């Protein structure tokens, strides 16, 4: 839907504008970039595979790129492929005008590596490795990791169940003045 046509019809554009946080120029640019991903194929599919999405320069070096694709993908086989509307969802959540609630919600889902609805020790450890670099010489030592995760759970796990749930996560996020401006991807 909207991925194969070279021009976006006006009603479609208006609908996209109303349902996402993107402006008209941003939607048109997204449409152009999305089509460029499949321009070599004679029969471009509506659903673009994940490796093509990951080739976008904005996502190529992001340590969370695979998680982002998985979170926004509506594919039944969970392969991280995105339709144009999923792509717009992605850009809308990462846009300038998206609200703090939307951004914190999606940030939580991105950090939830095992998709169980809470951030437990394993999720936090994978998160730290993504943030510091996942190679042998850039990871923290076991001791430091343990100390760090204990500190995080002590700070943010308010109900003391050993995991950080969405409300606790949003509580931490709400105290940061920089989150909204750093959780941004602009084409």
């Amino acid at each position, binding site marked *: 839907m909207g991925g194969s046509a070279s021009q976006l019809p006006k009603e479609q554009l208006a609908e996209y504008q109303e349902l996402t946080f993107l402006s008209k120029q941003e939607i048109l640019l997204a449409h152009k970039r999305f089509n460029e991903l499949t321009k070599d194929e004679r029969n471009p599919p509506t659903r673009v595979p994940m490796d093509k999405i990951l080739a976008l320069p904005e996502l190529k070096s992001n340590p969370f790129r695979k998680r982002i694709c998985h979170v926004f993908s509506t594919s*039944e086989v969970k392969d991280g492929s995105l339709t144009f509307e999923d792509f717009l969802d992605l850009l809308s959540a990462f846009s300038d005008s998206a609200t703090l*609630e939307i951004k914190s*919600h999606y940030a939580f889902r991105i950090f939830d590596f095992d998709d*169980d609805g809470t951030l437990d020790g394993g999720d936090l450890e994978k998160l730290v490795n993504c943030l510091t*670099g996942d190679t042998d010489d850039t990871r923290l030592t076991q001791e430091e990791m343990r100390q760090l995760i204990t500190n995080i759970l002590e700070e943010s796990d308010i109900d003391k169940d050993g995991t950080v749930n969405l409300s606790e996560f949003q509580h931490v*996020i709400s105290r940061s003045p*920089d*989150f909204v401006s750093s959780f941004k991807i602009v084409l």
Partner: protein
Amino acid sequence: MELNEFNRNGVATAGSGYFNSEQSLRLRRPPSHASNQNASPHFDWGRSSEGGEDEDEEEPRHVRELPMPFALRKAVRQVQQMRVPVASRRARRSRALKRFSSQAKNALALVTLWRKSIHKIGGHFGGGVQSYFVFLRFLVVLNFLSSLLIAGFVLIPAIVFNSLHLNTTIPEANLTGFEVCMVYDTSPNALTVFYTYFLDLLSGTGFMEYSYMFYGYYNNTMIVTSGFSYNIPLAYLLTASFYFIFCFICIIVRMGGVWRVAVTTGGGTVGGYSMLLFTGWDYGLQGDRATKLKQNNIRYQLQVDLEEERLQLKAKSLTLLQTVGTYALRTLLNLIVLALIGGAFAGIAFATQFSQTQEAQEGIVGLLLEYLPSIVITASNFVVPLLCDQIALLEKHSPSTTIILALLRAVFLRLVSLAVLLFTLWENITCYTDRSACSPCQYNHRIYQCWETRVGQEMYKLVLFDFLTTIVKLILVDFPRRMVVDNCSWSLVQWVGREEFLVPPNVLGLVYAQTVVWTGALFCPLLPLLNTIKFVIIFYCKKISLFQNCRPAARTFRSTSSNVVFFLVLLFGWSLATTVLIYSMAELHPSYGCGPFRFSVTMWSIVPNSFQGLSPTTKEFLRYIGSQAFSIPLLLLSCVVLCYVAALASVYGNSVALLKAQLKLEGRDKQFLVKQIEELTKKQGVPKHDRDPILRDPTPMAVDPMRASFRPTQNNYS
């Protein structure tokens, strides 16, 4: 009802499986009006449009704010459109107002100076370095607005009136016996070698001295034409005072905003790790180099924070003897630091005295002599903090305490050394040592024919020298250092490494430069304009140097709390400059030979004199405002407002604590409910896979429904 129809048809896109179950889940729940819309994105399908106006204006935004996939949002919108909205005039007006305010905010954000550069700096080097550049931007805007103010009220009228040769009235004064004071010899020599122009430019003498640049050029005239009168001396004085008040208000407003942020984020150290991990990544970074830089940054920060925590734990476990020993060592080191600073002050006082009392000499030697105070100040500002840093290594404080101590010591050194310079100048002007030189004119007319211009020249030289030092340091130290480190593989060189952008010394440089400008603004009206240009050039030079030469800082620097410290230090500099201003205006006698206050007893006396010229009602009104009958009720009112605001602040603090406790209770309720449900289902003997989907997400009603989609087939709470 149309909702059931909708549910049966399902959503005709991919992934309809668990979305359907989600819809049915939502339909089963009663509409929960208690849901906090802001805390969790939760859409209530069954809600009717009783909310009326409020709901209407939120609807277009409401659909976007749902964290659902695109197809679901489309479905929700279609449902909403089936309901006829009651678009009253109030709703339309408030909606238009909201749209206008959001557009205005967007436009304002676009207009913000250097927004993209500062954001890029923050992404690569962290919040600490970014806060320096934000502070620099604030000072540029402040100086620009001040220079507009001064230009509008002092410079342009003076230029206009001088060129138009309007009918001027000069106030009468009895000047018998003061002829020797009125000598002001400024005409440059007829034969001047070319390089003297350059020397004059650097020292503010010669052709620059008798120009709009300095105080001495302005006349004490009052222009009275048909229906328009402009009192230049009064304008000069009031503009200078208003300039200070304007800067004070800007600093206080900005500091208030920064303080609010620092308070709400809890001072930084609380929640530091979670905040760093959850909000620390900048998703706008592109390219491998930027990503690696940021990852290194985060890793350094984490490692240093963890190490600081380990050190603190270790420090708590020291024995009594060790703690006593540490405190004794710290006292000794503080005394050494004080002695160093005192020595620097003595040096500056001596250098200023020497430079002022020397005869004017030609050429480079003369220039060096003129710049001697600046050279000594800059040298001490460079050497003493270096020694203090080495001493601080022995003190064994935690890293953040060390940084704050270094900042405070350097502040003390820089600003008080400036004060010593000014004090020495004032001593010479008012003949502290040699009473006879001041006999007719009440200031030392032999050395200073126009002492205000001389003070203005000193400040001008300080500003220029500071600028030159910064640029020269960048060119001669930072760039070569990077080239040596990159191309030479000796272990010593690699150990020294690339430069690290240290924020406290750079911020102090800015505060020092701004204090000098404030001190000199009364005597050199174009100084704020010069300073604007200087700070703009420094911004670009520092930015280029940062990206080319520096590596990310290994030490943490909490930007939110340090922002408050920057503004406090700036305020300290401002109060120093205000002291100078008030003393010059109220105590010292203006020069007889130059300037707009030629024949007044003090600069301030022009105000009471002009007061006589006002209309009687204005005089009465101003007298009433100055009297006790007005100021005491005003004071009482301010106290009442202060008490009210303090009470409000404590109430908000209490509600934050209450909300935190409520969050904890909610978690406990959740666990309790889970246990209850498990017991009930066990009693009834219902098999696991048939259990109601609500079990998949046994959270309180207000939390978002999307969690069900996370585990479509698992059942974590069985």
